Protein backbone atom coordinates (compact mmCIF):
# COMPACT_ATOMS: atom_id res chain seq x y z
CA UNK A 1 0.00 0.00 0.00
CA UNK A 2 1.34 3.39 -0.86
CA UNK A 3 0.61 6.32 1.36
CA UNK A 4 -0.91 9.32 -0.22
CA UNK A 5 0.59 12.56 0.93
CA UNK A 6 -1.79 15.44 0.69
CA UNK A 7 0.91 17.58 2.15
CA UNK A 8 4.53 16.77 1.71
CA UNK A 9 7.25 18.38 3.71
CA UNK A 10 5.49 21.65 4.21
CA UNK A 11 7.10 23.90 6.68
CA UNK A 12 5.27 27.08 7.43
CA UNK A 13 5.82 29.69 10.02
CA UNK A 14 3.24 32.40 10.47
CA UNK A 15 3.85 35.57 12.37
CA UNK A 16 1.33 36.83 14.84
CA UNK A 17 -0.99 39.44 13.37
CA UNK A 18 -0.26 38.59 9.77
CA UNK A 19 -2.89 37.98 7.15
CA UNK A 20 -1.67 35.04 5.11
CA UNK A 21 -3.46 33.98 1.99
CA UNK A 22 -3.05 30.35 1.00
CA UNK A 23 -3.84 29.79 -2.63
CA UNK A 24 -3.63 26.96 -5.09
CA UNK A 25 -5.75 24.81 -7.33
CA UNK A 26 -8.13 22.27 -5.89
CA UNK A 27 -6.39 19.13 -4.72
CA UNK A 28 -3.24 21.04 -3.93
CA UNK A 29 -3.56 20.38 -0.20
CA UNK A 30 -5.05 23.68 0.91
CA UNK A 31 -7.85 22.09 2.86
CA UNK A 32 -5.57 19.57 4.49
CA UNK A 33 -3.27 22.36 5.60
CA UNK A 34 -6.25 24.25 6.96
CA UNK A 35 -7.53 21.24 8.83
CA UNK A 36 -4.14 20.67 10.39
CA UNK A 37 -3.71 24.27 11.42
CA UNK A 38 -7.30 24.33 12.61
CA UNK A 39 -6.66 21.31 14.87
CA UNK A 40 -9.40 19.37 13.12
CA UNK A 41 -6.93 16.78 11.93
CA UNK A 42 -3.59 15.39 13.05
CA UNK A 43 -0.58 14.95 10.80
CA UNK A 44 0.52 11.38 10.10
CA UNK A 45 4.11 12.48 10.48
CA UNK A 46 5.89 15.44 11.92
CA UNK A 47 4.45 17.90 14.37
CA UNK A 48 2.32 20.94 14.70
CA UNK A 49 3.28 23.50 17.23
CA UNK A 50 0.65 26.07 17.99
CA UNK A 51 1.53 28.95 20.23
CA UNK A 52 4.41 26.95 21.61
CA UNK A 53 2.24 23.89 22.34
CA UNK A 54 2.88 20.61 20.58
CA UNK A 55 -0.64 19.50 19.75
CA UNK A 56 0.29 16.48 17.63
CA UNK A 57 -0.54 13.92 20.27
CA UNK A 58 -3.59 15.63 21.73
CA UNK A 59 -6.82 13.65 21.93
CA UNK A 60 -10.12 14.78 20.42
CA UNK A 61 -11.32 16.62 23.49
CA UNK A 62 -8.03 18.41 23.98
CA UNK A 63 -8.08 19.47 20.35
CA UNK A 64 -11.68 20.67 20.76
CA UNK A 65 -10.55 22.77 23.68
CA UNK A 66 -7.69 24.29 21.67
CA UNK A 67 -10.08 25.04 18.80
CA UNK A 68 -12.52 26.71 21.13
CA UNK A 69 -9.87 28.84 22.74
CA UNK A 70 -7.46 29.71 19.97
CA UNK A 71 -9.12 29.33 16.61
CA UNK A 72 -12.06 30.95 14.95
CA UNK A 73 -13.48 29.39 11.82
CA UNK A 74 -15.26 31.01 8.91
CA UNK A 75 -16.48 28.63 6.24
CA UNK A 76 -17.38 29.05 2.60
CA UNK A 77 -20.84 27.70 3.34
CA UNK A 78 -21.13 29.67 6.61
CA UNK A 79 -22.31 26.55 8.48
CA UNK A 80 -24.57 28.47 10.79
CA UNK A 81 -26.91 26.40 12.94
CA UNK A 82 -30.24 26.74 11.16
CA UNK A 83 -32.36 26.31 14.29
CA UNK A 84 -30.62 29.11 16.17
CA UNK A 85 -30.95 32.87 15.88
CA UNK A 86 -28.04 35.03 14.74
CA UNK A 87 -27.29 35.94 18.33
CA UNK A 88 -27.40 32.33 19.52
CA UNK A 89 -25.08 31.32 16.68
CA UNK A 90 -22.62 33.99 17.70
CA UNK A 91 -22.85 32.77 21.31
CA UNK A 92 -22.24 29.12 20.45
CA UNK A 93 -18.43 28.94 20.91
CA UNK A 94 -18.82 30.65 24.29
CA UNK A 95 -21.42 28.05 25.37
CA UNK A 96 -18.84 25.32 24.88
CA UNK A 97 -16.42 27.28 27.02
CA UNK A 98 -19.07 27.59 29.77
CA UNK A 99 -19.18 31.35 29.76
CA UNK A 100 -22.15 32.70 31.68
CA UNK A 101 -25.26 33.79 29.85
CA UNK A 102 -25.00 37.50 30.52
CA UNK A 103 -21.45 37.82 29.26
CA UNK A 104 -22.36 35.68 26.26
CA UNK A 105 -25.27 37.88 25.28
CA UNK A 106 -23.23 41.02 25.76
CA UNK A 107 -20.32 39.74 23.73
CA UNK A 108 -22.49 38.33 20.91
CA UNK A 109 -24.42 41.58 20.61
CA UNK A 110 -21.25 43.65 20.68
CA UNK A 111 -19.79 41.61 17.82
CA UNK A 112 -22.98 41.57 15.75
CA UNK A 113 -23.40 45.28 16.26
CA UNK A 114 -19.89 46.02 15.08
CA UNK A 115 -20.51 43.88 12.04
CA UNK A 116 -23.59 45.92 11.22
CA UNK A 117 -26.16 43.34 12.28
CA UNK A 118 -27.78 45.10 15.23
CA UNK A 119 -31.20 44.69 13.65
CA UNK A 120 -30.83 40.98 13.08
CA UNK A 121 -30.12 39.50 16.53
CA UNK A 122 -33.22 37.39 16.64
CA UNK A 123 -33.36 36.36 13.00
CA UNK A 124 -32.66 32.85 11.85
CA UNK A 125 -30.00 32.15 9.20
CA UNK A 126 -32.67 31.39 6.61
CA UNK A 127 -33.97 34.95 7.00
CA UNK A 128 -30.56 36.50 6.32
CA UNK A 129 -28.75 37.23 3.06
CA UNK A 130 -25.50 35.46 2.22
CA UNK A 131 -23.42 38.45 3.23
CA UNK A 132 -25.29 38.75 6.52
CA UNK A 133 -24.85 35.06 7.19
CA UNK A 134 -21.13 35.28 6.61
CA UNK A 135 -20.97 38.27 8.96
CA UNK A 136 -22.78 36.22 11.62
CA UNK A 137 -20.21 33.47 10.99
CA UNK A 138 -17.41 36.00 11.46
CA UNK A 139 -18.99 37.19 14.69
CA UNK A 140 -19.11 33.58 15.76
CA UNK A 141 -15.46 33.02 14.87
CA UNK A 142 -14.50 36.02 16.97
CA UNK A 143 -16.69 35.09 19.94
CA UNK A 144 -13.95 33.69 22.14
CA UNK A 145 -11.49 36.31 20.93
CA UNK A 146 -9.13 33.70 19.48
CA UNK A 147 -5.69 34.75 18.22
CA UNK A 148 -6.11 32.84 14.94
CA UNK A 149 -8.90 33.07 12.38
CA UNK A 150 -9.14 30.43 9.69
CA UNK A 151 -11.26 31.53 6.78
CA UNK A 152 -11.94 28.89 4.16
CA UNK A 153 -13.14 30.58 0.97
CA UNK A 154 -15.08 33.13 3.02
CA UNK A 155 -16.25 34.93 -0.12
CA UNK A 156 -16.84 31.81 -2.20
CA UNK A 157 -20.60 31.95 -1.90
CA UNK A 158 -20.92 35.72 -2.08
CA UNK A 159 -21.09 38.13 -4.99
CA UNK A 160 -18.03 40.32 -5.60
CA UNK A 161 -19.41 43.38 -3.86
CA UNK A 162 -20.57 41.59 -0.75
CA UNK A 163 -17.35 39.61 -0.71
CA UNK A 164 -15.35 42.82 -0.62
CA UNK A 165 -17.35 44.15 2.29
CA UNK A 166 -17.03 40.93 4.24
CA UNK A 167 -13.29 40.87 3.66
CA UNK A 168 -12.98 44.47 4.80
CA UNK A 169 -14.76 43.60 8.01
CA UNK A 170 -12.82 40.40 8.52
CA UNK A 171 -9.42 42.02 8.17
CA UNK A 172 -10.13 45.36 9.76
CA UNK A 173 -12.45 44.50 12.59
CA UNK A 174 -10.93 42.95 15.63
CA UNK A 175 -10.10 44.29 19.01
CA UNK A 176 -6.51 43.25 18.61
CA UNK A 177 -4.63 42.26 15.53
CA UNK A 178 -5.38 38.64 14.68
CA UNK A 179 -3.50 36.14 12.66
CA UNK A 180 -5.72 35.41 9.71
CA UNK A 181 -5.20 32.45 7.43
CA UNK A 182 -7.20 32.87 4.29
CA UNK A 183 -7.71 29.89 2.04
CA UNK A 184 -8.95 30.89 -1.36
CA UNK A 185 -8.45 30.61 -5.03
CA UNK A 186 -9.85 34.02 -5.66
CA UNK A 187 -6.86 36.15 -6.73
CA UNK A 188 -8.73 39.34 -5.91
CA UNK A 189 -8.31 38.61 -2.22
CA UNK A 190 -4.54 38.96 -2.55
CA UNK A 191 -4.75 42.62 -1.68
CA UNK A 192 -5.87 41.85 1.88
CA UNK A 193 -2.93 39.57 2.55
CA UNK A 194 0.45 40.46 4.02
CA UNK A 195 1.78 37.25 2.54
CA UNK A 196 0.58 34.92 -0.21
CA UNK A 197 1.50 31.26 -0.27
CA UNK A 198 0.75 29.13 -3.29
CA UNK A 199 0.46 25.39 -2.80
CA UNK A 200 1.03 22.92 -5.63
CA UNK A 201 0.71 19.18 -5.19
CA UNK A 202 1.15 19.37 -1.48
CA UNK A 203 4.20 21.60 -1.63
CA UNK A 204 4.71 25.29 -1.21
CA UNK A 205 5.62 26.47 -4.65
CA UNK A 206 5.64 30.21 -4.47
CA UNK A 207 5.76 32.66 -1.67
CA UNK A 208 5.12 36.32 -2.22
Amino acid at each position, binding site marked *: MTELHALDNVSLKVKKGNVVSIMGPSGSGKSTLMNLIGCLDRPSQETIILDGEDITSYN*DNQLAEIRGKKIG*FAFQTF*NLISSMTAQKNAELPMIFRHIDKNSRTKRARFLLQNLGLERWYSHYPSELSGGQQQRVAIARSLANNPPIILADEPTGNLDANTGEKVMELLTSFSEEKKTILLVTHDPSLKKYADRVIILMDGKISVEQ
Partner: protein
Amino acid sequence: MVIGVGRTGDSPQLSLTETVFTDKDVENIGNLHHIKDVAPVGIISLKKIIKREKFLTWDSQFGGTMYASNSVILEILDLEMVSGRIFEEGEREIVIDKSIADVFGENKPLSIGDSIYFQRIDGIVSKTKIVGIFKRKEDANIVGRLTSPSIVGPISPYYSTYFGSNVGRVILGRTSAYGILYARAIDKTGVVSAQNESLEYLNSDESDAHHYKDKNSDFVLITQEYIVSRVDQIMSVISMFITAIVLISLIAGGIGIANIMFATVTQRTREIGAIKALGARHSDILQLFLYQSILMGFFGAIIGCIVGALGSIVVIEFANNRISDIGGTYLSGTISLNYSNEWFIIATLVGVFVGIIAGALPARRAAKLDPVKALKYE
Protein backbone atom coordinates in the same frame (compact mmCIF):
# COMPACT_ATOMS: atom_id res chain seq x y z
CA MET B 1 -72.91 -16.56 49.49
CA VAL B 2 -75.48 -17.31 46.84
CA ILE B 3 -77.02 -20.77 46.92
CA GLY B 4 -78.82 -22.06 43.90
CA VAL B 5 -79.15 -24.92 41.50
CA GLY B 6 -77.39 -25.17 38.22
CA ARG B 7 -74.15 -26.36 36.82
CA THR B 8 -70.89 -26.56 38.70
CA GLY B 9 -67.46 -26.75 37.15
CA ASP B 10 -64.99 -24.18 35.97
CA SER B 11 -67.62 -21.53 35.49
CA PRO B 12 -70.62 -22.41 37.63
CA GLN B 13 -73.97 -21.20 36.42
CA LEU B 14 -77.15 -20.62 38.34
CA SER B 15 -80.41 -21.67 36.78
CA LEU B 16 -83.12 -19.54 38.28
CA THR B 17 -85.91 -21.67 36.87
CA GLU B 18 -85.54 -24.56 39.29
CA THR B 19 -87.30 -23.68 42.50
CA VAL B 20 -86.30 -26.40 44.92
CA PHE B 21 -85.46 -24.83 48.29
CA THR B 22 -88.24 -25.14 50.84
CA ASP B 23 -88.84 -23.22 54.04
CA LYS B 24 -87.48 -26.25 55.87
CA ASP B 25 -84.23 -25.99 53.92
CA VAL B 26 -84.02 -22.30 54.72
CA GLU B 27 -84.50 -23.00 58.38
CA ASN B 28 -82.00 -25.87 58.47
CA ILE B 29 -79.33 -23.95 56.61
CA GLY B 30 -79.93 -21.03 58.93
CA ASN B 31 -79.25 -23.29 61.85
CA LEU B 32 -75.90 -24.52 60.52
CA HIS B 33 -72.90 -23.80 62.67
CA HIS B 34 -71.12 -21.34 60.40
CA ILE B 35 -74.15 -19.62 58.89
CA LYS B 36 -75.23 -16.32 60.35
CA ASP B 37 -78.48 -15.86 58.44
CA VAL B 38 -80.28 -16.89 55.27
CA ALA B 39 -82.69 -15.05 53.05
CA PRO B 40 -84.75 -17.02 50.57
CA VAL B 41 -85.46 -15.04 47.45
CA GLY B 42 -88.38 -15.30 45.11
CA ILE B 43 -87.51 -13.38 41.99
CA ILE B 44 -90.48 -11.63 40.41
CA SER B 45 -89.95 -10.04 37.02
CA LEU B 46 -92.03 -6.91 36.58
CA LYS B 47 -93.66 -5.57 33.45
CA LYS B 48 -95.06 -2.27 34.53
CA ILE B 49 -95.84 -0.05 37.49
CA ILE B 50 -99.19 1.68 37.65
CA LYS B 51 -100.17 4.62 39.77
CA ARG B 52 -103.82 5.69 40.08
CA GLU B 53 -104.77 9.05 41.47
CA LYS B 54 -108.46 9.90 41.51
CA PHE B 55 -109.38 9.65 37.84
CA LEU B 56 -105.89 9.59 36.46
CA THR B 57 -103.80 6.56 35.74
CA TRP B 58 -100.11 6.56 34.94
CA ASP B 59 -98.30 3.50 34.00
CA SER B 60 -94.70 2.95 33.23
CA GLN B 61 -93.12 0.16 31.27
CA PHE B 62 -90.68 -1.18 33.75
CA GLY B 63 -88.24 -4.03 33.28
CA GLY B 64 -87.17 -4.18 36.90
CA THR B 65 -86.97 -7.05 39.29
CA MET B 66 -88.67 -7.50 42.61
CA TYR B 67 -87.18 -9.65 45.32
CA ALA B 68 -89.70 -11.30 47.61
CA SER B 69 -87.73 -12.11 50.70
CA ASN B 70 -87.30 -11.34 54.35
CA SER B 71 -85.72 -8.25 55.81
CA VAL B 72 -82.30 -9.94 56.09
CA ILE B 73 -81.87 -9.69 52.33
CA LEU B 74 -81.28 -5.94 52.60
CA GLU B 75 -78.38 -6.53 54.97
CA ILE B 76 -76.92 -9.32 52.88
CA LEU B 77 -77.00 -7.20 49.74
CA ASP B 78 -75.63 -4.17 51.61
CA LEU B 79 -78.72 -2.10 50.92
CA GLU B 80 -79.53 0.60 53.42
CA MET B 81 -82.80 2.35 54.13
CA VAL B 82 -82.71 6.02 53.14
CA SER B 83 -86.13 6.78 54.55
CA GLY B 84 -89.23 5.05 55.79
CA ARG B 85 -89.22 1.60 57.29
CA ILE B 86 -88.84 -1.94 56.17
CA PHE B 87 -91.81 -4.03 54.97
CA GLU B 88 -93.67 -6.41 57.24
CA GLU B 89 -94.14 -10.04 56.33
CA GLY B 90 -97.73 -10.71 55.31
CA GLU B 91 -98.48 -7.08 54.51
CA ARG B 92 -98.98 -5.52 51.07
CA GLU B 93 -95.92 -3.37 51.49
CA ILE B 94 -92.72 -2.81 49.58
CA VAL B 95 -89.52 -0.83 49.76
CA ILE B 96 -88.17 0.66 46.55
CA ASP B 97 -84.75 1.61 45.24
CA LYS B 98 -84.00 5.31 45.26
CA SER B 99 -83.28 5.24 41.53
CA ILE B 100 -86.77 4.07 40.61
CA ALA B 101 -88.61 6.68 42.63
CA ASP B 102 -88.53 8.81 39.48
CA VAL B 103 -90.00 6.15 37.23
CA PHE B 104 -92.93 8.47 36.38
CA GLY B 105 -90.67 11.46 35.86
CA GLU B 106 -88.87 13.76 38.19
CA ASN B 107 -91.89 15.95 38.82
CA LYS B 108 -93.98 12.99 39.99
CA PRO B 109 -91.64 11.08 42.24
CA LEU B 110 -92.89 8.06 44.13
CA SER B 111 -92.78 8.62 47.83
CA ILE B 112 -93.47 6.82 51.06
CA GLY B 113 -97.15 6.18 51.61
CA ASP B 114 -97.97 6.02 47.90
CA SER B 115 -100.16 3.19 46.78
CA ILE B 116 -99.15 1.70 43.50
CA TYR B 117 -99.87 -1.37 41.41
CA PHE B 118 -97.31 -3.53 39.76
CA GLN B 119 -97.89 -5.93 36.97
CA ARG B 120 -95.81 -9.04 36.76
CA ILE B 121 -94.49 -10.47 33.57
CA ASP B 122 -97.28 -13.11 33.73
CA GLY B 123 -99.93 -10.37 33.79
CA ILE B 124 -100.99 -10.53 37.44
CA VAL B 125 -101.51 -7.09 38.92
CA SER B 126 -100.96 -6.56 42.63
CA LYS B 127 -101.66 -3.57 44.79
CA THR B 128 -99.01 -2.43 47.22
CA LYS B 129 -97.91 0.45 49.37
CA ILE B 130 -94.47 2.00 49.45
CA VAL B 131 -93.20 2.06 53.03
CA GLY B 132 -89.52 2.74 52.54
CA ILE B 133 -86.81 3.76 50.13
CA PHE B 134 -83.39 2.12 50.06
CA LYS B 135 -80.11 2.62 48.27
CA ARG B 136 -77.01 0.56 47.88
CA LYS B 137 -74.20 1.40 50.27
CA GLU B 138 -71.17 3.12 48.77
CA ASP B 139 -68.90 0.33 49.94
CA ALA B 140 -71.33 -2.48 49.18
CA ASN B 141 -70.00 -6.01 48.94
CA ILE B 142 -69.59 -7.60 45.57
CA VAL B 143 -72.77 -9.67 45.73
CA GLY B 144 -74.67 -6.47 46.47
CA ARG B 145 -72.96 -4.74 43.58
CA LEU B 146 -73.89 -7.45 41.15
CA THR B 147 -77.48 -7.76 42.28
CA SER B 148 -79.73 -4.76 42.15
CA PRO B 149 -83.38 -5.40 42.91
CA SER B 150 -85.57 -2.40 42.18
CA ILE B 151 -88.21 -3.44 44.67
CA VAL B 152 -88.03 -5.63 47.74
CA GLY B 153 -91.15 -6.94 49.40
CA PRO B 154 -92.33 -9.70 51.69
CA ILE B 155 -92.72 -13.27 50.50
CA SER B 156 -96.32 -13.36 51.53
CA PRO B 157 -98.47 -12.21 49.83
CA TYR B 158 -96.33 -11.59 46.75
CA TYR B 159 -94.50 -14.81 46.17
CA SER B 160 -96.38 -18.03 45.76
CA THR B 161 -94.47 -20.77 44.10
CA TYR B 162 -95.20 -24.15 45.56
CA PHE B 163 -94.05 -27.60 44.85
CA GLY B 164 -96.26 -29.25 42.34
CA SER B 165 -98.02 -26.07 41.46
CA ASN B 166 -96.62 -26.07 37.97
CA VAL B 167 -96.91 -29.83 37.58
CA GLY B 168 -100.58 -29.90 38.33
CA ARG B 169 -100.94 -32.15 41.35
CA VAL B 170 -99.92 -31.00 44.75
CA ILE B 171 -98.06 -33.89 46.32
CA LEU B 172 -96.30 -32.29 49.19
CA GLY B 173 -98.89 -29.97 50.50
CA ARG B 174 -98.29 -26.27 50.22
CA THR B 175 -94.75 -25.45 50.93
CA SER B 176 -93.06 -22.48 49.34
CA ALA B 177 -90.17 -23.18 47.04
CA TYR B 178 -87.40 -20.76 46.16
CA GLY B 179 -84.94 -20.73 43.33
CA ILE B 180 -82.20 -19.00 45.21
CA LEU B 181 -81.00 -18.38 48.75
CA TYR B 182 -78.66 -15.72 49.99
CA ALA B 183 -76.70 -16.74 53.06
CA ARG B 184 -74.07 -15.08 55.19
CA ALA B 185 -71.29 -16.80 57.10
CA ILE B 186 -70.67 -15.91 60.74
CA ASP B 187 -67.38 -14.28 59.78
CA LYS B 188 -64.87 -14.08 56.95
CA THR B 189 -62.82 -17.05 58.12
CA GLY B 190 -65.92 -19.22 58.28
CA VAL B 191 -66.87 -18.83 54.63
CA VAL B 192 -65.31 -22.06 53.42
CA SER B 193 -66.76 -24.02 56.34
CA ALA B 194 -70.15 -22.42 55.76
CA GLN B 195 -69.95 -23.39 52.13
CA ASN B 196 -68.97 -26.99 52.88
CA GLU B 197 -71.52 -27.29 55.63
CA SER B 198 -74.32 -26.02 53.41
CA LEU B 199 -73.34 -28.25 50.55
CA GLU B 200 -73.18 -31.26 52.88
CA TYR B 201 -76.65 -30.50 54.17
CA LEU B 202 -78.12 -29.90 50.72
CA ASN B 203 -76.76 -33.18 49.41
CA SER B 204 -78.05 -35.11 52.41
CA ASP B 205 -81.34 -36.98 52.52
CA GLU B 206 -82.61 -34.52 55.03
CA SER B 207 -82.80 -31.69 52.50
CA ASP B 208 -85.96 -31.19 50.45
CA ALA B 209 -84.00 -29.52 47.69
CA HIS B 210 -81.99 -32.69 47.25
CA HIS B 211 -85.18 -34.57 46.41
CA TYR B 212 -86.76 -32.02 44.16
CA LYS B 213 -83.93 -30.79 42.04
CA ASP B 214 -83.36 -32.16 38.60
CA LYS B 215 -81.03 -35.17 38.68
CA ASN B 216 -78.68 -33.51 36.23
CA SER B 217 -78.40 -30.30 38.21
CA ASP B 218 -76.00 -29.62 41.03
CA PHE B 219 -76.11 -27.27 43.92
CA VAL B 220 -74.11 -24.18 43.15
CA LEU B 221 -72.68 -22.09 45.98
CA ILE B 222 -71.05 -18.91 44.89
CA THR B 223 -69.10 -16.97 47.47
CA GLN B 224 -67.86 -13.44 47.32
CA GLU B 225 -64.32 -14.77 47.37
CA TYR B 226 -65.10 -16.81 44.31
CA ILE B 227 -66.50 -13.80 42.46
CA VAL B 228 -63.54 -11.71 43.53
CA SER B 229 -61.10 -14.36 42.38
CA ARG B 230 -62.86 -14.66 39.03
CA VAL B 231 -62.77 -10.92 38.60
CA ASP B 232 -59.09 -10.95 39.61
CA GLN B 233 -58.42 -13.66 37.05
CA ILE B 234 -60.08 -11.65 34.32
CA MET B 235 -58.32 -8.51 35.43
CA SER B 236 -54.93 -10.21 35.44
CA VAL B 237 -55.49 -11.45 31.90
CA ILE B 238 -56.53 -7.95 30.86
CA SER B 239 -53.56 -6.37 32.60
CA MET B 240 -51.16 -8.86 31.00
CA PHE B 241 -52.65 -7.98 27.65
CA ILE B 242 -52.33 -4.27 28.36
CA THR B 243 -48.76 -4.71 29.59
CA ALA B 244 -47.91 -6.42 26.31
CA ILE B 245 -49.46 -3.56 24.37
CA VAL B 246 -47.59 -1.03 26.51
CA LEU B 247 -44.26 -2.79 25.93
CA ILE B 248 -44.84 -2.95 22.21
CA SER B 249 -45.80 0.73 22.17
CA LEU B 250 -42.71 1.67 24.16
CA ILE B 251 -40.47 -0.28 21.81
CA ALA B 252 -42.20 1.21 18.78
CA GLY B 253 -41.98 4.69 20.33
CA GLY B 254 -38.31 4.15 21.14
CA ILE B 255 -37.55 3.01 17.61
CA GLY B 256 -39.47 6.02 16.34
CA ILE B 257 -37.38 8.39 18.43
CA ALA B 258 -34.13 6.64 17.45
CA ASN B 259 -35.14 6.85 13.81
CA ILE B 260 -35.85 10.57 14.00
CA MET B 261 -32.59 11.11 15.85
CA PHE B 262 -30.56 9.18 13.27
CA ALA B 263 -32.24 11.20 10.54
CA THR B 264 -31.45 14.42 12.40
CA VAL B 265 -27.81 13.42 12.87
CA THR B 266 -27.48 12.65 9.17
CA GLN B 267 -29.30 15.79 8.14
CA ARG B 268 -27.22 17.99 10.41
CA THR B 269 -23.86 16.37 9.83
CA ARG B 270 -22.36 19.62 8.55
CA GLU B 271 -23.71 21.56 11.51
CA ILE B 272 -22.24 18.96 13.82
CA GLY B 273 -18.91 19.35 12.03
CA ALA B 274 -19.20 23.11 12.43
CA ILE B 275 -19.89 23.05 16.14
CA LYS B 276 -17.04 20.60 16.58
CA ALA B 277 -14.80 23.10 14.82
CA LEU B 278 -16.09 25.75 17.22
CA GLY B 279 -14.80 23.77 20.16
CA ALA B 280 -17.65 21.42 21.09
CA ARG B 281 -16.35 18.40 22.96
CA HIS B 282 -17.58 14.85 22.69
CA SER B 283 -19.78 15.35 25.73
CA ASP B 284 -21.26 18.63 24.47
CA ILE B 285 -22.61 16.95 21.34
CA LEU B 286 -23.74 13.90 23.25
CA GLN B 287 -25.68 16.19 25.57
CA LEU B 288 -27.16 18.21 22.74
CA PHE B 289 -28.68 15.18 21.06
CA LEU B 290 -29.67 13.35 24.22
CA TYR B 291 -31.43 16.50 25.34
CA GLN B 292 -33.46 16.49 22.15
CA SER B 293 -34.44 12.82 22.42
CA ILE B 294 -35.29 13.19 26.11
CA LEU B 295 -37.54 16.12 25.24
CA MET B 296 -39.24 13.95 22.64
CA GLY B 297 -39.75 11.15 25.17
CA PHE B 298 -40.92 13.62 27.80
CA PHE B 299 -43.47 15.42 25.65
CA GLY B 300 -44.53 12.13 24.07
CA ALA B 301 -45.26 10.79 27.54
CA ILE B 302 -47.19 13.91 28.54
CA ILE B 303 -49.28 13.83 25.38
CA GLY B 304 -49.77 10.10 25.98
CA CYS B 305 -50.98 10.76 29.53
CA ILE B 306 -53.50 13.32 28.32
CA VAL B 307 -54.77 11.13 25.49
CA GLY B 308 -54.89 8.12 27.82
CA ALA B 309 -56.82 10.01 30.50
CA LEU B 310 -59.33 11.42 28.03
CA GLY B 311 -59.59 8.06 26.26
CA SER B 312 -60.39 6.24 29.49
CA ILE B 313 -63.10 8.76 30.31
CA VAL B 314 -64.69 8.05 26.92
CA VAL B 315 -64.35 4.28 27.34
CA ILE B 316 -65.84 4.33 30.85
CA GLU B 317 -68.70 6.52 29.66
CA PHE B 318 -69.35 4.11 26.81
CA ALA B 319 -69.14 1.05 29.07
CA ASN B 320 -71.54 2.53 31.61
CA ASN B 321 -74.02 3.39 28.87
CA ARG B 322 -73.81 -0.17 27.61
CA ILE B 323 -74.32 -1.54 31.10
CA SER B 324 -77.49 0.42 31.59
CA ASP B 325 -78.64 -0.46 28.05
CA ILE B 326 -78.19 -4.16 28.66
CA GLY B 327 -78.91 -4.38 32.35
CA GLY B 328 -81.63 -1.79 32.69
CA THR B 329 -82.34 -1.13 36.31
CA TYR B 330 -81.58 -4.73 37.19
CA LEU B 331 -77.88 -4.13 36.77
CA SER B 332 -77.44 -0.56 37.82
CA GLY B 333 -73.77 -0.84 38.70
CA THR B 334 -71.44 1.72 37.23
CA ILE B 335 -67.73 1.52 36.65
CA SER B 336 -65.87 4.40 38.17
CA LEU B 337 -62.61 5.81 36.90
CA ASN B 338 -59.69 5.86 39.30
CA TYR B 339 -56.46 7.61 38.48
CA SER B 340 -53.49 7.30 40.72
CA ASN B 341 -51.32 10.34 40.21
CA GLU B 342 -48.06 8.50 40.67
CA TRP B 343 -48.68 6.64 37.43
CA PHE B 344 -48.57 9.90 35.51
CA ILE B 345 -45.18 10.58 37.04
CA ILE B 346 -44.02 7.03 36.32
CA ALA B 347 -45.24 7.31 32.72
CA THR B 348 -43.35 10.57 32.26
CA LEU B 349 -40.19 9.06 33.73
CA VAL B 350 -40.55 6.04 31.45
CA GLY B 351 -40.92 8.43 28.50
CA VAL B 352 -37.71 10.21 29.51
CA PHE B 353 -35.99 6.85 29.95
CA VAL B 354 -37.10 5.68 26.50
CA GLY B 355 -35.81 9.01 25.15
CA ILE B 356 -32.39 8.38 26.70
CA ILE B 357 -32.18 4.79 25.45
CA ALA B 358 -33.40 5.67 21.97
CA GLY B 359 -31.20 8.76 21.75
CA ALA B 360 -28.02 7.12 23.02
CA LEU B 361 -26.87 5.52 19.78
CA PRO B 362 -27.66 8.46 17.47
CA ALA B 363 -26.05 10.87 19.95
CA ARG B 364 -22.95 8.71 20.10
CA ARG B 365 -22.78 8.62 16.35
CA ALA B 366 -23.01 12.41 16.24
CA ALA B 367 -20.35 12.84 18.91
CA LYS B 368 -17.95 10.51 17.12
CA LEU B 369 -18.23 12.19 13.73
CA ASP B 370 -14.90 13.23 12.30
CA PRO B 371 -15.13 17.03 12.00
CA VAL B 372 -13.18 17.10 8.73
CA LYS B 373 -15.50 14.60 7.06
CA ALA B 374 -18.60 16.10 8.65
CA LEU B 375 -17.75 19.55 7.30
CA LYS B 376 -17.39 18.14 3.80
CA TYR B 377 -20.64 16.17 4.03
CA GLU B 378 -23.11 17.05 1.27
